[in-house]
């Protein structure tokens, strides 16, 4: 695989994992009854 392709994979993976962890964080905070905004800060 070309070096450029590998970096593309890294960037795509970073974006996917960031979205995953953001959604898990938000879901877990809300599940505990903690009102949070899009930035996960207290409402």
């Amino acid at each position: 695989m070309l070096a450029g392709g590998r970096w593309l994979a890294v960037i795509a993976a970073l974006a996917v994992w960031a979205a995953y962890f953001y959604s898990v964080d938000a879901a877990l905070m809300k599940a505990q009854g903690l009102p949070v905004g899009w930035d996960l800060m207290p409402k």
Partner: protein
Amino acid sequence: MSARRLIALGALAGAAALLFAPDLAAAAGDAVGHGAPAPQPTAADYPRIGSLSGRTVVWVFAQMHLFLAAFVLAVPIFVICIELAGVLTRDPRYDQMAHEFMKISMAAYSFTALSGGGLMLGLILFYPMVMGYMTRVFQGQTMIYALLFLMESALLYIYYYSWNALRYGNRKWYHMSIGLILNTVGLTLMFIANAWATFMMSPAGVDPAGALTGSVWAATRNPLWNPLNLHRFLANIAYGGAIVGAYAAYRFLSATTAEERAHYDWMGYTSNIIAVAGFLPLPFAGYWLMAEIYAYSQQMGITAMGGVLAWLFIIQAVLIGTILLAANYYLWCGLGRTDEGMRFGRWVKYIAVVILGGFLVWVTPHSLILTPAEVQQLGGTHHKILGPLGIMPAKNIAVNLMLVFTFLSFQLFYRSSRTPSVSWAPIGNAVIVALYGVGCLNIVGAGIYGYVTPTVYKVGASVPQVATTLSIIVFSAIIDGFMLRGAKTSKVHWGRMGQRSQYALFVLPVAFTWLMALMGYIRSSLRTHWHIYTIMKDASPESFIPTIGEAGNIITMITLLFMALIVFIFWLSRLGSTSQPAPAATRSVEAEA
């Protein structure tokens, strides 16, 4: 239906029936009816034997029994897994190792029963009214416990002694079925004992005066029961793995042939994996237990983590840090077992920095014991740099990163003998690197979040941190699993380990034992001056939390005592496999015959 399936079904049905044993006991309790209030003893109700401290006698027996019981209950759990691995892989080495693990456990079993008997005698002798009340609350359950104990003994002996008789084919499945029932009985025993211990901390099913209002099941299923069940289940596995690892190290160091050294190196490696696998989720189970303690009684929670006992959590951090450092060191040494392993060696220093850094943050106290002059010099009770590192958000970051990087050490070791051959391996590696990167950032971010939000959010943010650590472990293991299918494997030179690595395996059980004794003291002290929290007061002359110094001495003495016992058990196990060479005269008679 084949005989094998019938056996498996029978074993499962038996196991299910046994799991409902507390329910059966509850039914027995209901038949007797509701009890009278709890007795309120006076100082005269505690028998005295000279100047002997009843509390210390019970403490020593209880702790010794707990160590031994944890070990003998844990070993059959992972032994049956190793036995199954032997059947699935058709590799006889697994079976041999599983059998050897059981041999060590057998040597410890009689001591477990002895220490249990000693504990029971001590309790009846020094705390008759407490025991009378507990028996009245749990009624028939105590009989079920005794019955299960008998079953455990019988099954353990059958399981061990039938090993060679039921070794191959369908008979092996018979043997594993016996192991399954043995484990179910063992776990049920532990769950019942846990119910009694947690009832004393968070009584349920009784009114404020202590009279039974619900069923025995209500008293059993008290608020702290399940958190303790999970915590002890995981801790037992980690502890059992650590002890058999020390045995493997002992045999490795005393091995005289390369073959023997290779076998015990492999055994030590497997034991370390078991210990780490049990240990990685353990802090989360401990966190759940502590959260439930706070939820049940905020005062009890503050006694644990906000009062004098809080200092002991610093010692806990030292011991857990020691365990993680030792386990990682052993894994790093293991990279030398393969010719390709050292290519990962350059990453070790970075992992070491993270684990050591996490260790230092974890052991940082929030408040210091200072003289008035020192407070004046410092300008307050909290050091401006150390203060922020002493609170939970910093410690949560530290512990989660330590666990993630311990898993990374394991992953590197696993990779050291495998080179992926799938075409998408570079993408797979990129995905794993990104997972670690984003995950670690999320752990650090959630910790920083705790500094800028109110306390309830700070506590709440620890849950996403746990989820992140578990996500990293689970997802990277899954990706690795797919990526290493059909991988090119290189030879693992079992036995090619330095002697120093084996001492890391000795460190693990010592640190675990000390840690368990320390946390046992904390858990028991949370009841303060109550036998049964808020129900039955302790009116004995020893109704106070022992000072940290006194507790430290007793905990250390118990640890040394247990270690001496373990050395004796190892020696016994080795003695059992040692044969004296026949004298020349006997050999010639045998040759003639």
